[in-house]
């Protein structure tokens, strides 16, 4: 039988397909068809497509060069933007280990015996993250901090015996988180009730008396979206007094230094979620990061996502396996706790190695150095008239108010500083009109005294330029101190 061999074979080979023409012939013969075309004979002709308009393939080197060229102008920025994703140092060992094929190219550990690596790692992660949050149980991850909060709201609603569906959510929660919660919960009859922030302190307003009858839970951010530390003990006590559940949403880095949500107030938070990115995930344009979720053991059956449990194998040896799967979509389908299937496993692996390398002492040092650096920057900006917008204490991120004497708006100033390779902070106008004269600026342990100096000089320079274009430090001198190749 003559076989029709696809024509590409001599021309192209870059689709990672190992078949030789000889093998294709053998395979077609075994199947009993004369060409691969025949294999698609169940697809109505009218639906067949025969080519794409995507151009020819490039080889790997060309593609890497293309990406390199595009990324080049993005290199070597001095970044002081946080706003939910923080530039912390990542030990080289983290991704060297996590990049191993055995971690990177495994699937979800459904076959326990072939997946003890991933399973034990997740078990260790669950142990670490519950230690950090002071909670009893954790899942194996959700997509990111915002979806974790949305899932927490859905979980709270599921767990409500009275069927309550009203959630109090302060406006000091990251606006993107609030938006995601809205999008993900809106079709389930859940009411999200805003709580304002105090324009002086930046904390949740203190004039809340009693919670509405049908309120189910209070969301409590720590630090809040403006970097400010909320009075969490007081709020947990208030909430529990009111029979509200507490959903804490935290930066895990803060928990090296500040009290674990499980110990907030007299009774502790009920559900704790957060963005795991600061622990081992590079900024990477917003992902992959991971959301974590911890809770009390009594609520474990309401948890979304995967959970690993410890068991034995048939010889009595310790072995791990996915457990309580009857919560999940592949078993429960329309009655599952969530539709989540693929999660952010590899990022969790990175965080697990990260926490193992740092330990309590390392995390604490990073937290303290970051707090210290933030204060150093604030102190050095003071002479320029730039100062914290809010009075309540902050951790390592702070809303900075740009003085109104400046010729430029906060946004204009920020663009001018960007042009010198410094990302001075997020312009808060995008979040709130009232804060249109503010930047939200994060300073982590990655910043040296020199970096902070560079920041201050860049801002100073622009402000001077504003007033007296002649007096300014030449841009090129500045650029070189920022470390940009000229």
């Amino acid at each position: 039988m003559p076989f029709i061999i696809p024509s590409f074979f001599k021309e192209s080979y870059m689709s990672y397909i190992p078949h030789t023409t000889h093998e294709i012939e053998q395979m077609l013969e075994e199947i009993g068809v004369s060409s691969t075309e025949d294999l698609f004979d169940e697809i109505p002709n009218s639906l067949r497509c025969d080519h794409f308009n995507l151009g020819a393939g490039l080889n790997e080197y060309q593609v890497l060069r293309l990406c390199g060229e595009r990324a080049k102008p993005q290199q070597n920025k001095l970044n002081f933007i946080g706003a939910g994703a923080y530039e912390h140092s990542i030990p080289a060992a983290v991704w060297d280990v996590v990049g191993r094929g055995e971690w990177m190219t495994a699937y979800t550990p459904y076959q326990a015996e072939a997946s003890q690596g991933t399973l034990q790692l997740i078990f260790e992660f669950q142990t670490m993250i519950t230690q950090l949050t002071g909670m009893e149980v954790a899942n194996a991850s959700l997509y990111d901090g915002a979806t974790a909060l949305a899932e927490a709201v859905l979980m709270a609603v599921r767990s409500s015996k009275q069927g309550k569906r009203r959630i109090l959510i302060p406006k000091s929660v990251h606006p993107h988180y609030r938006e995601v919660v809205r999008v993900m919960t809106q079709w389930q009859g859940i009411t999200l009730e805003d709580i304002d922030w105090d324009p002086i302190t930046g904390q949740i307003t203190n004039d809340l008396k009693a919670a509405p009858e049908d309120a189910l839970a209070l969301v409590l951010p720590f630090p809040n979206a403006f970097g400010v530390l909320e009075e969490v003990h007081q709020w947990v006590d208030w909430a529990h007094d009111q029979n509200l559940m507490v959903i804490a949403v935290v930066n895990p880095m803060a928990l090296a230094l500040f009290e674990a949500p499980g110990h907030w107030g007299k009774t502790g938070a009920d559900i704790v979620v957060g963005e795991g990115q600061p622990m081992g995930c590079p900024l990477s344009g917003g992902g992959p990061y991971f959301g974590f979720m911890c809770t009390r053991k009594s609520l474990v059956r309401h948890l979304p996502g995967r959970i690993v449990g410890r068991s034995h194998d048939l010889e009595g040896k310790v072995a791990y396996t996915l457990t309580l799967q009857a919560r999940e979509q592949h078993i429960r389908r329309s009655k599952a706790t969530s539709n989540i299937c693929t999660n952010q496993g590899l990022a969790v692996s990175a965080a697990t190695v990260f926490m193992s390398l740092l330990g309590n002492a390392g995390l604490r040092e990073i937290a303290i150095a970051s707090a210290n650096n933030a204060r150093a920057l604030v102190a050095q900006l003071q002479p320029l008239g730039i100062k914290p917008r809010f009075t309540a204490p902050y951790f390592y991120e702070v809303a900075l108010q740009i003085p109104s004497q400046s010729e430029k708006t906060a946004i204009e100033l920020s663009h001018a500083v960007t042009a010198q390779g410094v990302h001075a902070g997020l312009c808060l106008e995008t979040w709130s009109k009232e804060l249109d004269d503010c930047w939200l600026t994060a300073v982590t342990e990655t910043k040296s005294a020199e970096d902070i100096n560079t920041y201050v000089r860049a801002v100073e320079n622009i402000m001077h330029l504003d007033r007296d274009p002649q007096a300014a430090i030449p841009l090129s001198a500045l650029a070189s101190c920022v470390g940009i190749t000229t």
Partner: protein
Amino acid sequence: MKTIFEKSRSGRRAGAQGAGSLSKTESKNTVNSLPAHLLRKDPVLLPEASELQVVRHYTQLSRRNFSIDTNFYPLGSCTMKYNPRGAHRAAMTSGWVDWHPLSPEESSQGALQTLFELQEALAEVTGMQAVSLTPMAGAQGEFAGVAMIRAYHESRNDHQRQEIIVPAAAHGTNPATAVMCGYKVREIPINASGDVDIDALRAAVGPNTAGLMMTNPSTCGVFERQVAEIAQIVHEVGGLLYYDGANLNAILGQARPGDMGFDVLHLNLHKTFATPHGGGGPGAGPVAANHRLAPFLPIPRVGCDNNKSYFWLTEKDAPQTIGRLSTFQGNFGVLARAFAYIQILGSEGLRQVGEFATLNANYLMARLEKAGFQLAFPNRRATHEFIISFEQEEKKWGVTAMDFAKRLLDFGIHAPTTYFPLLVPECWLIEPTETESKEELDHFVEILIQIRQEAEQDAALLKKAPFTTSVRRVDEVKAAREMILTQPLAEWMLGELSSVPSPN
């Protein structure tokens, strides 16, 4: 193997991490400047291990996994094909790996251009009009799509549509997603040849129908031949069609969901576009829509003006958007990998993916059929995957699909998906993917024949399998009963006190 906690010793610190630059006084002053009542009282009990211990622990631990890089992994519905290292490198490009997601657009042009071009490429391969890249996995893509269907109906004040129709064999995320969007799920049966029961569909649709979710090829590993008719039926009653693109690998370059009549779909880049699965994630589940649903796509997306300047599209540009699904803009690192993969393969390479994924599946199916294994749909073409059933073997020797699966592990091959779809008893869903060689497939057949012989001669052996993995068969019931979900502190604190460590 011991946990990293059991290797911890209190007071141990041996690495070069941490800030290490502050003096004790500076540290103390900083801590003192923080509100004392908010400070942590007890330290976080994390492992205290040396860097060598940590590297050694997680290196050894990794070797207890099967993975594509080490094993043939024909896990149906998961498209476990080669994850090119070049694409991984692309995602690690300096300037991208340290790109803050909220950086000003003027500092982000290269990445934005890349995302824009990825949007365009995915529109082309699916035959859709517009794409949003933000969903972080298939299930979130499904959520986006169904929420868009809902938003569409709502925007027309068409509030009575409260049902989503789902074929019985659908992936679990489909019904779960419909429920998250506030819909009721109505399942319709599959007929004996694996196609949707058209009469049942006709009976099910009506003014309550918001839409239908399906994947084609279906989870039965066959192409739904009546897809055009199905689309017509649903559209006629005013419903919309959602395409679960997790199985796109089968038809890549052969047929496009947009041409089949689907209104909205998601793609699993961690399947068709070869980004790695990472032991459970991350993935990316971009959602694509036709002109009808494009206005509802989630934000942010990337736009491009006449000066080839790229920018984020937000609520302002897309007032009908369902909104935001992630804190930032999705899993950029995964998207960069998919971009690199598409650039490498080009038009022709992408077409070959569907062609050879299908060739491999049909070849493997033919060989297994000749070897006497029972196919679920013997008279159909396989797509990129197909189903065999161990019903006979179970009846004759009491050996289940799971026993076969566990025994397969002993031969260094990962088990296919077992017991899915639920409607075929004792089944395996087998997906070899296009990147595996003929030898690998032949080897698989030989092994399976051998295991069947074992099953006949010594069923007990299979019941006790696997033997060569790092642990033997795991007791799942015990895990669920005991619910040990974290390592009890007492265990590893005890370990610390015993001076003679127990063996590995």
